[in-house]
């Protein structure tokens, strides 16, 4: 059974059809990538899957259960975590606290426990803190643990978003352009990072413009264009698909390992 199944999903903003009847399914345990030109509807699709937007029509199933129209916090509780293309870090909190918010659903958060600081709360907090620190070490953020997030450089904030999403121990992890705005070295680092993330656990759906990163990481690629699913399949096939090449590069070109070579 597929982990996520999307059926005839459509979303209109006023008269604009951002997403126009998209259907696909994602197998568990693999790295999937979602690519397409700007404005193809990638972020809209992310926002629909994570409940930030409600679809105009169509249905979404997660682990066989219909989740269409559920709010973000309910989907998070089912095991879907995400990062944001434009950073959504909690800037006035420390780096460790950011990650702890990622653990929110696993923490003791009943009112009486929080007011009285019961032993069960202290234990849960101590464990969460250890888990957060372990994640920060893995993502090379441990030296920032006590720093306020707004004092971090851009590349570190990108990794912090990933750490926060991983803290939830998600079943499905949606990454919206994790390498956007990063230089070549940072992009390579994020590639390495994502490879180890994917080895360990969640099914990944990745939106990314850096084709080298996508071709290296993804086992299955979905191509979106003008709100429609243009093609899907393994990287080797997508790379040679004439429709994909045309959508990306016009008639003469090939999707190579580089970002865009016409």
């Amino acid at each position, binding site marked *: 059974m597929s982990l996520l199944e999307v059926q005839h999903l459509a979303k209109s903003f006023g008269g604009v059809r951002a997403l126009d009847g998209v259907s696909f399914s994602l197998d568990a345990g693999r790295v999937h990538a979602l690519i397409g030109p700007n404005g193809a509807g990638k972020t809209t699709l992310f926002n629909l899957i*994570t409940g930030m937007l409600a679809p105009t029509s169509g249905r979404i199933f997660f682990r066989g259960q219909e989740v269409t129209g559920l*709010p973000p916090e309910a989907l998070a509780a089912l095991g879907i975590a995400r990062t944001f293309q434009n950073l959504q870090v909690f800037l006035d909190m420390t780096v460790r*606290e950011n990650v702890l918010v990622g653990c929110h659903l696993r923490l003791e958060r009943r009112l009486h426990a*929080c007011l009285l600081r019961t032993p069960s709360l202290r234990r849960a907090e101590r464990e969460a803190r250890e888990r957060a620190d372990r994640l920060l070490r893995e993502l090379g953020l441990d030296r920032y643990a006590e720093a306020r997030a707004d004092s971090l450089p851009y590349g570190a904030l990108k990794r912090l978003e990933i750490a926060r999403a991983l803290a939830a121990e998600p079943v499905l992890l949606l990454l919206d352009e994790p390498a956007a705005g990063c230089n070549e070295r940072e992009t390579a680092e994020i590639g390495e990072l994502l490879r180890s993330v994917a080895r360990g656990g969640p099914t990944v759906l990745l939106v990314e413009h850096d084709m080298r990163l996508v071709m290296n990481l993804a086992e299955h690629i979905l191509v979106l264009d003008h709100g429609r699913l243009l093609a899907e399949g393994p990287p080797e096939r997508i790379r040679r698909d004439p429709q994909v090449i045309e959508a990306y590069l016009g008639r003469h070109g090939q999707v190579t390992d580089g970002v865009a070579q016409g």
Partner: protein
Amino acid sequence: MDGARSRLLGLAILALVLAGLPLTFTNSFWYDVAIHSGISAIVCVGLNLLIGYAGQISLGHAAFFGIGAYASAILTGSWRWPAELALLAGLALSGGLALLVARPILALRGHYLAMATLGLGIIVSILLNQEIRLTGGPDGMPVPGLVLFGFPVRGPLVWYALVAVSLFIVTLLALHLVDSPIGRALRAVHGSELAARACGVDSTRLKVLVFVLSAMIASYAGSLFAHFSGWLTPAEAEFMRSIEFVTMVVLGGMASTFGAIVGAVVLTALPQFLTVFHDYEHVVLGLALVLGMIFLPRGVVPELARRLGWRAL
């Protein structure tokens, strides 16, 4: 300094100040001022959780204060209930009413809670003035003395001790909450509501929770106030009282528990010592807020802490 240590230090200082303060009191007037300040401070510590952390404003907290006060007055006076039970009934009534108002309102984005609580405050105030048979109307009603677990609370020192211990406990609970998953989640909602919800934070539920809690704390303070004064009028539940509470929190420093206490003490004690200004009390209040916003925009305590390089609590 990490959260637990600065919390302990703050609480230790509060305990010392509360315990040492009576040594400086030369007559019962000082006790009177201190007890009234403490009661306002209890309300403000709760209200600060709502304003400073849940990012919502209540313009009707005097109504919850009034509900607690009148529940104690009516139930112990006319109905002969024990004071503890009357106090609990006030808490239940305030909490229930807060839940009823907040559930539909807080699901909406924006400052609709301010409007809803404004309306609630006015309704409660009108009811207290009109239900003369129950409340005595604008002239007020007598309230029996407080007897807690068979022990009569009498005399300024005993009252001071009760209010001080209450304030200490409420402060302790508030600091715990702020440094708990709920407090972190609320601060996260403040930073990015979308990201917080994507982490599984049910922001609506948390805001409702904090509003209900702050209403119950106000109700508790109201019950204490009623028994302490011995005579209760609807003026205590009026709109201007709600505004005073908000002013205290903002002046002391939003998102600072000790700031709420400082704001409450300053704005309760100041008019007592500046009796010359009695007729202009609200002018002084307004002026304090305006000057505070200009010179200490973050509030007294956070601004001082920042200048001294401390972590504000």
